[in-house]
């Protein structure tokens, strides 16, 4: 059996949808493919070496740096980007154009608590925080710190981000 993918086409499963990638060099990172080929610019690229976390996506249930995933090797994986954290119209491919204006409770809390300044780190942090709270709905302060230790923010000093996470934890707790 030949599983090789040449330069023609492969299909990724992103935000619940099959997304064909055509005419792409197969060595491209998932970050590049998301942004430049699939109109999903939510994940940001800053370092392209796994250091900053601004490109964080969920792959098969793990938060990973999309800049360190070779996109063509991610066939068969379940990928969720920041655009896929909310309900989207399943009849259309999720892209920057079609995405609804609705936002998640974590995004709302980041806004309300002032966890966003320049905003470059924000999508990666939003994905990392969603991932944390899914696995661990009531994390300790240390667990929150450790879970976003791979997400660099140069603006906020993190205090507002921790406040946002705490706010989400409290609201979710009250509504359970």
């Amino acid at each position: 059996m030949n599983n090789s993918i040449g330069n023609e086409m492969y299909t990724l499963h992103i935000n619940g949808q099959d997304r064909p990638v055509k005419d792409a060099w197969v060595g491209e990172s998932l970050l590049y493919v998301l942004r430049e080929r699939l109109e999903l610019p939510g994940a940001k690229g800053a370092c392209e070496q796994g250091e900053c976390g601004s490109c964080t996506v969920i792959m098969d249930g793990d938060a990973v740096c999309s800049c360190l995933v070779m996109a063509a090797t991610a066939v068969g994986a379940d990928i969720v980007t920041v655009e896929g954290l909310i309900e989207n119209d399943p009849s259309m491919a999720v892209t920057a154009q079609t995405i609804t204006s609705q936002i998640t409770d974590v995004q709302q809390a980041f806004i309300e608590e002032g966890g966003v300044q320049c905003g470059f780190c924000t999508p990666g942090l939003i994905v990392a925080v969603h991932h944390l709270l899914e696995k661990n709905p009531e994390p300790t302060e240390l667990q929150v710190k450790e879970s976003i230790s791979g997400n660099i923010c140069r603006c906020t000093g993190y205090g507002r981000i921790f406040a946002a996470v705490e706010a989400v934890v409290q609201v979710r707790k009250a509504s359970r």
Partner: protein
Amino acid sequence: MTVAVPLSLAEAFDELSRTPDARLIQGGTDLMVEINFNHVKPANVIALRRIKELRTWHVNSNNTITIGSGVPYQEMETGQLKELLPALAEAARTVGSPQIRAAGTLGGNLGTCSPAGDGLPVLFALDAIVHLQSLESSRDLSIHDFMLGVKRNARTANEIITGVTVPVLDGWQGYAKVGVRNAMVISVASACLAVDKKSNSVRIALGAVGPTIIRCRDAESWLVQQFDLSIATSIDPAIALEFGRRVALESKPIDDHRSTADYRRHAVGVLAKRLITRAYPS
């Protein structure tokens, strides 16, 4: 360039015989950095991430554990693997960030074979066996024969590292590392210490202070003459200090962009003293 995503080892070997020059990729946390920065441009890539055989681990009947080369660090940090191999759990927890630990593996750490690789001092302290397999044959190599130098190992191009086997020891073990901060640092100096009460022995292996990981055989044999490791519960602080001094003497550090030789030599001495004091609180 082609990318193959085999679903089994057998398929992977088929791919490897079809494209003998192929680069293997597991978590991608080393190789993708090289590719993103155009340092390497492989003609062919074989991704191992979907090979389930490589992503499992098991306890063997002779009280050893075999860990597949594709098991990510995050699985070593908690649960049964942490209980059985505490030093590996501590080392795994120091690697990069949660994102890196979800992807990075021992197979990749061995493939890259950097003296600063955090998995390697643990494997050296535990005298790990590295399992290598090719289409035609398989072989088991001692970690001491596997790592040959800075980013050099004994793997041949047609081989896949399938896993490592390490013993479950009876005694304290741990890992410590010095870097500029807690998260996301490559080691400036590191050490793994493991006590085996059964054989009344101690093993200490140093990372980032030589071209390969260094086992401090002299310091190890000196220490066992000072007290009985199998019954002691605490250590004389003077012995811990002298142990650190002797460990530092066996390191072979260099100056580079991350630190100086002097600092590294000093640091491994401190790490050794701390580790033995954690094992036997003074």
